């Protein structure tokens, strides 16, 4: 966080790209995409992105591999049983915390 100009430009790029992706079709297009492959591609993008962003990053999110693994395992199990977003997040954080406390105590 020590170069304000670099960060300002980065944030402006994020804003501009995100806005243009949404605005270009709304302003310029009046027809729907018919191509089935392209529609399928865009349908799968969120799943691929979220999966790739989460694994293996979650393992190192606490700075400690074992609490990261404990959190990931809890989240996968809770999500598998269709718990809400909040429960899954809280369960993962509590697992990580318990794991860290055990490590600190040993």
């Amino acid at each position, binding site marked *: 966080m020590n170069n304000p100009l670099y960060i300002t430009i980065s944030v402006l790029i994020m804003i501009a790209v995100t806005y243009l992706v949404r605005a270009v079709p709304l302003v310029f297009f009046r027809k729907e995409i018919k191509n089935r492959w392209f529609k399928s591609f865009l349908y799968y993008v969120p799943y691929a992105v979220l999966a790739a962003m989460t694994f293996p990053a979650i393992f190192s999110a606490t700075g400690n591999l074992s609490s990261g693994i404990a959190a990931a395992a809890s989240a996968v199990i809770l999500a598998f049983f269709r718990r809400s977003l909040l429960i899954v997040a809280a*369960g993962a954080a509590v697992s990580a915390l318990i794991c860290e406390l055990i490590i600190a105590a040993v």
Partner: protein
Amino acid sequence: MLGYLAVSFAFGMRVCALGVPWWLAGLISFTNLTSAGQFAGTNLFLAGAAFAEIALTVLIINSRYFLMSLSLTQKLGTGFGLFQRLSASYGVTDEIFAVAIGKGGKLSPRYMHGLILGPCIGWTAGAALGGVFSSLLPELVVSAMGVALYAMFIAIIIPPARENRPVLFTVLAAITLSVCFEYIPVFKILGGGWSIIIITVAVAALAATLFPVKEEETAGE
């Protein structure tokens, strides 16, 4: 509303723990109004990535909004001039799109603006609050809360992967590649943003080729 607050709160906590001031977390949330896209972008500038890497990553991650905006054009009622189209563009998110498409009849500019207002407030306030809290809570708790945003991503992808084989394939393939990119030294040359771009494009393209989706399934996440 609670969902928005929670996700953006986790975003704020995470990026502030990585060194972003709370007001910038709120500002990024307010101006981007996305989840994965703004998180990836923030991670990249914290790592000192090239501008092209940031732009392309945000473009690919948010590419689905292109399709959503495109289908929204079919639902716009009279009263959508250039200004209304420009302002509605700001609020095309997964949730707002799902509600707008699910509403019967045509959309009015008033309806769209009303629909955008709540998530906008929740998203901005949540990120700023998360940032403030991360500086107040003990370090051990902040570090444990660092997993919350990832856990929410897991909560979004696992239930559909349970029911839908192609989605399960997409998730597992992306995880496998992502782990390989992280731990196999050859791929280490690529920055974090590039590997997410490559994985996303490759896996989504493969899934689209192997499992083309039927018309009605493409409407949302």
